[in-house]
Structure formats: structure tokens, C-alpha cells
């Protein structure tokens, strides 16, 4: 290259100076408004009752959003893959259960609104104790240590009665009679609004953390830990502090769990809960702050809705996960953000046609896959449970050949069609991207 650094053409400032203050956070504020209003959309005005199902699902979304965001503090921001994040969540939950019981029994009169802090403290202390060891290593070794810790704590939760309550877990009653606002928290809707408040606080704090020296150095250590050393930072210390802080927020999520369900068992620390965190965060997108939020909402929706219809929601989540890992490591949020430069150049509409042509074969393949999975599932598991596969009142017999043929047709030829459509889409995408690059700078 013959041009020097100083001769490089100046690209126009891509973004104007961001507007200061609360106004520029309008996406988050919109989400907050939606969260506040949405239970009332499902309110049964005749009986004067909230939909239990909806409130339960929304509450779960709230705590999982905090859980997934705290996991991304490790994964996306610090480059640390943890297989034991549920430990911090669950230990926060257990601590909260004991604190609430203690408070109710006449001990320290902690207002219920502040109990998530107890969970956060529990998570923080656990993260300090466990993280001291885990963060001695990085990358794969770190991941394996967290795997070991996760399994150890799960086994402890099953074995020991005093703190963990053994297999039966620890129960508590959130109606302690202590409240800052004089609320009783007998109904789930009040707990939901408490969750919304704490979710907002946690998101704000975690977002601000990304803009601090520690947050930035965590990114730096993720990108190039040697360079971080050579600007004077000890990567181990950065890892340790980031781990501790992520434990604080995971503990808050755990506390909200305790307040919602009033019982904590070993599955709050188990591998399945850690896998949940991984799933939500990765599918949502690790490279974007809001990615885990998207992932948490999606996974909880999948879990709540699809599990009503099918036993196999985990299969779908797993396949989605693998597809993301292979083809879209940036997750859903990453995919959306890829469109940003195209949108800025005003060429988004050019992709509408290609997307439509992609939609039909995709739908066929998805349908075929779901059919195949459900058929298999009902052949073995469903049969053992005495259930049968019904769609809109139409019963499908997995022992018959027809449904299998249909599934094969959808997957086989449908798959080939999809492959061609993907290739065409790829070409269209490349064409639009090239246009955007060459036109770059023009308004």
C-alpha cells in the first residue's frame, strides 16, 4: 500500500454526537413501558383477575433477563465461558430464602423490596470464594473448572440438609410483613412489579459497568490478554473482579426466583440451569449488550408456549443453538445488527424480495423437522405416556407410514430448495453489501 496513514481519506463521521441523557435510551424505556402495561392486556375484566399463566411467564422473563445479562458479563464481555453460572444464581436464591425466613421469624426486619440485595450479596460472596480459584485459569481450563464446581455444588445441594435442605430444598414465605410501601405481596402481580423494578435497576447498572475502566479492560482481556498485560493490567485480577460482579447480579436474579416460587431446590444450581444461561445468551447474541435480553425472552417464550404443545421444546432450543453456533455466532442480535449499515444506506428494501423467497422453503423445512421430531417423540416417549399426537383436533398416528412420508418430503426436497434459496440470498446480500460499501459516505 503506497498511501500513508496521514493520507488516508477521512470517512465522514458515521454518527452524529449522541443525544445526552435519558432521551437517547428510548428503546429501553419503551421496553419498560411495555413491561408495565402488558399484564393488563391479559387481564380478565369479568372476574377481575390477572392471567396467572401470563404473570408467571413475565416474572420468569424478568429474572432470566438479569441472569442472562450477568452471564454475558462473563461470556461476551470478558470472553469467559462458564459452565457453572447457575451456582451463583442458586446460592443467591438459597441465601435469600434463609434471609426471608429469618426476617419473617422476627429477626432483622428487612423490607421485602430490599431482599434481592441479600441475594446479590450471597451471589457476590459465592463468586468471590469460587472465583478466586476458577479465575486462576482462563479459556478452556476455566470452563472445565466451572463445570467441576457446578457439579460439586449440585451434589452438595442434594446431600446437605442444613443450608440446602437436601432433596426437598428450602421453602420460605415472602409475606414477611415488612415492606417499604406497605404491600403484602400475597398476589403474584405485586411480585411481578417488584421484579420489573429490579430488572430495570440491574440492566442500568450492568450497562453502566460496561462503560467503566473494569468493563473496558474486561473487553481488552477478551480480545488480547497479552496486550492487556503490556498496558499494565493483570488479566487474572480483571477476570476475578468481573466474575465477582457477575455473581452479584446472578444472585439478584436468584433472589427474585425465591420471592416468586417461595421454594429453592437443587435445580437452581444444576447444570440444566447453567445450560439455560448459555442457551439464552448465545442465541440472543453475545456481542451486543441487549442480546441476552432477546435470548431470555425467546427461550422463556419457547419454554412456556412450546412446552404446552410438545415435549420436545428442548430439542428445538438445542437445534437453534447449534445453528447459531455454526452459522450465526453473533446470535439474533448480531444478525439484526448486520443490517445496520444496509439500513443506514437506505437499501434495506432491496432485501425484502430475497427474504420472502427464503421464507417459504424455510417454513417447509421447519415444518418437516417439527413433524419428524414430534413423530419420533410420540413413537417412544409419548406412547409410554399414553399420549397421542393431535393437531387442531386431527390425530396423527406415528405408526402409520403417511406422516413419515410427508415429513420426508418436507425435509428432503424442501431442504434442497432451501439450500438453493440460501445461495441466492447470499448472492443478493453480497450484492447489496458491496453497493453499500462503494456508496459509503454518500447521504
Amino acid at each position, binding site marked *: 500500500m503506497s498511501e500513508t*496513514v496521514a493520507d488516508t481519506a477521512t470517512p465522514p463521521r458515521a454518527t452524529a454526537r449522541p443525544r445526552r441523557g435519558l432521551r437517547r435510551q428510548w428503546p429501553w424505556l419503551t421496553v419498560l413501558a411495555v413491561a408495565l402495561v402488558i399484564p393488563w392486556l391479559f387481564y380478565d375484566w369479568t372476574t377481575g383477575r390477572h392471567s396467572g399463566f401470563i404473570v408467571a411467564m413475565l416474572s420468569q422473563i424478568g429474572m432470566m433477563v438479569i441472569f442472562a445479562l450477568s452471564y454475558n458479563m462473563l461470556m461476551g464481555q470478558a470472553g469467559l465461558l462458564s459452565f457453572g453460572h447457575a451456582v451463583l444464581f442458586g446460592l443467591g436464591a438459597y441465601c435469600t430464602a434463609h434471609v426471608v425466613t429469618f426476617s419473617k421469624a422476627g429477626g432483622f426486619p428487612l423490607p421485602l423490596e430490599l431482599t434481592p440485595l441479600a441475594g446479590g450479596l450471597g451471589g457476590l460472596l459465592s463468586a468471590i470464594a469460587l472465583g478466586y480459584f476458577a479465575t486462576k485459569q482462563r479459556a478452556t481450563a476455566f470452563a472445565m473448572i466451572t463445570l467441576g464446581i457446578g457439579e460439586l455444588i449440585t451434589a452438595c445441594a442434594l446431600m446437605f440438609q442444613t443450608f440446602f435442605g437436601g432433596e426437598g430444598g428450602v421453602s420460605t414465605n415472602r409475606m414477611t410483613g415488612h415492606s417499604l410501601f406497605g404491600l403484602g405481596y400475597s398476589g403474584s402481580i405485586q411480585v411481578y412489579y417488584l421484579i420489573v423494578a429490579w430488572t430495570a435497576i440491574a440492566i442500568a447498572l450492568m450497562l453502566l459497568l460496561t462503560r*467503566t475502566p473494569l468493563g473496558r479492560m474486561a473487553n481488552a482481556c477478551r480480545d488480547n490478554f497479552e496486550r492487556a498485560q503490556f498496558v499494565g493490567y493483570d488479566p487474572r485480577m480483571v477476570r476475578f473482579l468481573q466474575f465477582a460482579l457477575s455473581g452479584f447480579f446472578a444472585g439478584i436474579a436468584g433472589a427474585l426466583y425465591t420471592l416468586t416460587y417461595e421454594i429453592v431446590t437443587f435445580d437452581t444450581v444444576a447444570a440444566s440451569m447453567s445450560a439455560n444461561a448459555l442457551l439464552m445468551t448465545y442465541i440472543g447474541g453475545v456481542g451486543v449488550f441487549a442480546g441476552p435480553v432477546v435470548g431470555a425472552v425467546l427461550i422463556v417464550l419457547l419454554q412456556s408456549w412450546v412446552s404446552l404443545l410438545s415435549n420436545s421444546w428442548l430439542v428445538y432450543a438445542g437445534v437453534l443453538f447449534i445453528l447459531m453456533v455454526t452459522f450465526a455466532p453473533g446470535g439474533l442480535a448480531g444478525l439484526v445488527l448486520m443490517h445496520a449499515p444496509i439500513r443506514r444506506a437506505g437499501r434495506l428494501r432491496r432485501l425484502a424480495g430475497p427474504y420472502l423467497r427464503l421464507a417459504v422453503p424455510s417454513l417447509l423445512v421447519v415444518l418437516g423437522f417439527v413433524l419428524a421430531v414430534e413423530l419420533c417423540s410420540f413413537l417412544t416417549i409419548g406412547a409410554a405416556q399414553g399420549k397421542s399426537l393431535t393437531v387442531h383436533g386431527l390425530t396423527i398416528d406415528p405408526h402409520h407410514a403417511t406422516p413419515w412420508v410427508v415429513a420426508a418430503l418436507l425435509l428432503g426436497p424442501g431442504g434442497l430448495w432451501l439450500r438453493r434459496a440460501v445461495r441466492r440470498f447470499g448472492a443478493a446480500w453480497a450484492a447489496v453489501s458491496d453497493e453499500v460499501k462503494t456508496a459509503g459516505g454518500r447521504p
Partner: protein
Amino acid sequence: MTAPALRLTAVQKSFGPTAVIMGVSLDVAAGTRHAIIGPNGAGKTTLFNLISGRFPLTAGQIALHGRRIDGLAPHQITRLGLSRSFQVTSIFSRMSVLENIRCGLLWSRGYRYSFWHLLARERALNEAAERLLADVNLEARRDVPAGLLSYAEQRALEIGVTIAGGADTILLDEPTAGMSRSEADHAVALIRRITAGKTLVMVEHDMSVVFDLADVVTVLVYGQVIASGPPAEIRANRAVQHAYLGTPAETGVA
């Protein structure tokens, strides 16, 4: 006489049975520009790795301003005022150019592991980062992710991050490697400007850069120092010519 900025005493390094550095002793006086040259495989980058704490020594001592630094971790050595750049560009590829430089400034400005300072509000820090950005002529690329820069721009950023912490002893490993003539000239001017008053040690293959910048030249061949002195002396040294530079007829120098 004040202690030299950097003193290597009988430094040895072996990787398993292979000896790479075999008894190197070297003094770098404070405020001088010191070049280390030698054929490929001589151990120049290994020497840098030993000084900066990336590899442990097999034997010998290294002292920075009279204080022993062999055995210390890289981040500890950096905090003592010794900074290095890498032969293969080593920056934070997913962070913007400004963020890269800002990261280089953080520790020296006392922020440590703070998670209670909002970086956007730290005026002095940001101003210093912008100044440094201007020093390395990368203002136009301020918000670009570092991984997307051109090669020469990345080298400039590398140098920027290296000096950001205000280290007074700077090690540059082949800073002009892979650059065209004009790019290299710009880089040399940059290096001369920003290392004014500091101690500079650099590994270089480009002889014109070496003879232009350096006050002292050390020649390293097969892990041993065969000559050390002012550039003119080195150029005339028979042993150096034989091992590395070539005879006057080859270099075209009288």
C-alpha cells in the same frame, strides 16, 4: 554514574535443550536510542520477550534503572515503566482505535480496576487519548474497530498504545516491518517525535532506519553479542560485516 536504564547481565535462555540466548550482557543508557540488529533467528525477539517478562530467564539478571525485573510478571514490569510493542501487531481488535489508546492510558492515570468511574465523563483522560490519537495521526480513524485498520495504521496504533502509559523505557520490535519506503519514513518520524527524551530499544532489519535513528547499535548473532557501539563503528566492524551486513562492495558503502 547513574544506573543505566536497562542492564542485562549474562542472560541465558534455553527452550528445553535448545539454547537461544547464550550469555548476553548489555547496557542501555537512559535517554539513548539503542538498536539491536542481527540475522533471523539470532534471538532478538526472544531477548525482548525476556526483558518484558513474557518468558522466564534460564540464567542471568535484568535490571531496570538498577531494579531487578527478571522473574516479574509482564504487567508488573509494565507498571515499573517499561513498555513494548510486538512484531506481530498486538492490539484490541474488536475495540475502536480511541478505546485502544484509552486502555493504554488507564493504569498510568490511576484508574486501576475501578468499576465506579464512567469513562465518558473523565475529561482529562479523554483529552489525553485524543492528543495521543493526533500524535500517531489516527484521528480520522477514531471510531473504527482496530481490526479493520490497514497494516500501517495498525502499526501506528501499536506504537500509540505502547507509549500511552507514559513508560520511559520503550521496546519496539520491528516497528517498520512490512512498510513501504514512505510509510517507514513516516513511522521513523513518529518514533523520533514521541520517544524524545525517553530510552528506546528497537529491533530492526531496515539498516537505513537503524543508522538514521540509533545512537548505539548492538549486533546479535546466534544468541550472542558480537559487537556493540555507535553506528559508524558497527558499519566498519569486520566481524559484523562478515556475519550480517556484507562487505562494502555489497552494501555500496565506502
